[in-house]
């Protein structure tokens, strides 16, 4: 199976080749350099007119992309480091993501903003963060995060071509060189990939809205050990940290006879709860793992929605996340701030 980097790069190549409306913009993305993380390598050589290197103007680029999208193009923007999405917040929240609704559905803004995110590269406090928690929950914005259990290239293609609304596409830096798991080769596991049923959210009287997820293309993977006793704990995670959860699940099963079910959504916002709820209904326990800071994040929302849905059927719930601190540069400090496999194993043992 290919690496995530290869899959994303191929998806961009194919997007440019198959549709003239696609333009790719970002800082230092031209060949031979091909972008800070090489996701755009080879693109400008093949499509010099539609691969645009930009000044260091994150907000400006996203605004320009939104303007292009309003006028019929399909722009894909790279933000060099995910940490810098703070700079695009106004353009995303008060412009791109808002236009469709505030203009009474008279316009669409089909942009994709891709950005590498996350730590464990020693880049220090401003180049290692996990920032999507500040963008999930924004009305009109879809936030996606691929992992290696489903095809990141396919997800990116769908974000470009099948989604008329703005997408923030989070690529954990450590995913790039990992290979995509071949579901046939995950021999120890029962493996399901599902896209949420369109009517799942049907009518949430709660907040007085009906979610139209008919266009929900982002898959969620569920894994549980084959021929094992029924799982007693659901572990939900997204992005790179799914790998940790996977390692932890194997360890928990073989060392401690704790059987878990893994649930990996690729859509963070609107919050994709379908598989998490159905799994937690079976196991009664939910452990949520994320690389972002612990408080007020994705995990908090997932657990809140699960509690609202399951009531007393939810026996216990916990979050594993980074400490509420900036990310240090020094290796041992960074490791101490970020969540690891060991944290997942320990938390799981305490919960069952």
């Amino acid at each position, binding site marked *: 199976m290919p690496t995530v980097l290869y899959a994303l790069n191929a998806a961009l190549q194919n997007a440019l080749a198959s549709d003239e409306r696609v333009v790719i913009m970002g800082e230092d993305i031209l060949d031979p350099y091909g972008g800070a993380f090489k996701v755009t390598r080879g693109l400008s050589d093949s499509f010099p007119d539609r691969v645009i290197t930009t000044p260091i103007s994150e*907000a400006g680029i996203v605004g320009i992309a939104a303007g292009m*999208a309003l006028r019929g193009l399909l722009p894909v923007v790279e933000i060099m480091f995910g940490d810098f999405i703070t700079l695009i917040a106004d353009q995303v929240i008060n412009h791109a993501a808002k236009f469709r609704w505030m203009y009474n559905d008279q316009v669409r803004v089909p942009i994709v903003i891709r950005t590498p995110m996350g730590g464990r590269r020693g880049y220090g406090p401003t180049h290692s963060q996990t920032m999507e928690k500040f963008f999930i929950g924004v009305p009109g914005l879809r936030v996606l995060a691929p992992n290696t259990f489903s095809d990141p290239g396919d997800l990116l293609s769908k974000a470009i071509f099948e989604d008329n609304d703005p997408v923030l596409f989070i690529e954990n830096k450590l995913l790039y060189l990992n290979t995509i798991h071949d579901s046939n080769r995950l021999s120890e596991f029962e493996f399901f990939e599902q896209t949420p049923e369109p009517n799942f959210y049907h009518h949430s009287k709660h907040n007085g809205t*009906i979610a139209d*997820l008919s266009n929900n293309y982002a898959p969620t993977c569920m894994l549980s050990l084959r021929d094992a006793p029924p799982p007693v704990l659901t572990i939900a995670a997204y992005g790179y940290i799914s790998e940790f959860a996977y390692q932890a699940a194997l360890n928990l099963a073989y060392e401690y006879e704790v059987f878990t079910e893994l649930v990996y959504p690729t859509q963070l916002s*609107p919050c994709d709860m379908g598989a998490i709820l159905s799994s937690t209904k079976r196991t009664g326990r939910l452990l949520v793992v994320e690389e972002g800071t612990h408080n007020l994040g994705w995990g908090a929302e997932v657990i809140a929605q699960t509690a609202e849905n399951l009531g007393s059927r939810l026996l216990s719930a916990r979050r594993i996340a980074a400490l509420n601190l900036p990310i240090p540069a020094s290796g041992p400090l960074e490791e101490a701030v970020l969540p690891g496999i060991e944290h997942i194993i320990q938390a799981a043992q305490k919960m069952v």
Partner: protein
Amino acid sequence: MLYFTAMSDDNTLYEDLLRIRRFEEAVLDNFPKGVFFGTTHTYLGQEANAVGVLDDIHSGDIVFSNHRGHGHFLAYGGDIRSLFAELMGKTTGVCGGRGGSQHLQWQNFYSNGVQGGIIPIATGMALAEKRKYSDAIVIAFMGDGTLGEGVVYEALNMASLWQAPILFVLENNRIAQTTPIEMAVAGDISARFKAFNIMVRELDSSDVKEILPVAAELIAEVRSLKSPRTLILNTYRFGPHSKGDDIRDKHEIDQLRVERDPILIHAHRLDSNHKEAIELKVEKYIQEAFNQALADPLPDASKALTGSINHQ
């Protein structure tokens, strides 16, 4: 270069100016009655800018406007009743009541109420039109206070680098909300644009017939040369920033209302019969549009909030 422009006749220009004036007066007069939601920023005193700039645009041209956008919308050809209705939050409003005064979208007209943020978007639209080999250009309005926003300069840089077919119209009314320009804008305004190699024309006039030919010339250049231009219009805001929040010296404003009123300046060109007929027509029209909008239904929230974007 000389460009031929099919300038509207004096009567039409007068009607266009007066429609905006009477609309804005009706807005301010009726706000205390509680018929509108939120707030408003009226275009009183600046009417000649929108009418002059937008008189000669093509149907495909795009206008991106800001918080003070009623005049731009009406000069673009927007419907008075649907603008009233939008301010009243009615289903018949320009955006069904979702947007309100500062958030309009109709045909190729867009507006947003966040200072400066529209400038890169308008630039992107211009670049898209250029990529599509269309003939359309973009006209983006901003105020002097908006020069404080950093993203404006990111956009100017890229507009010049990539030669976007866009006309930036800077309406310098010398004040931003309550802050006079001396307290907010350092240095030279036109130099800001020139520094990016964007050619600038500057006028200090409230005469639609002075603004119109200069704007038309710039628009023709933007269109034919596929290149950005700036028009700085030194102008005066007669009314409050929004409602009843004017801290300026009243005598100064009264003086401006005598010297720099675009309606009075242009009215001299009409014979009195035509002038009166237009005034009656506009007043009647505004009154009817207001009454219709008032009678229009408010949205049914149980239906109007469904569908469309992803919630949760």
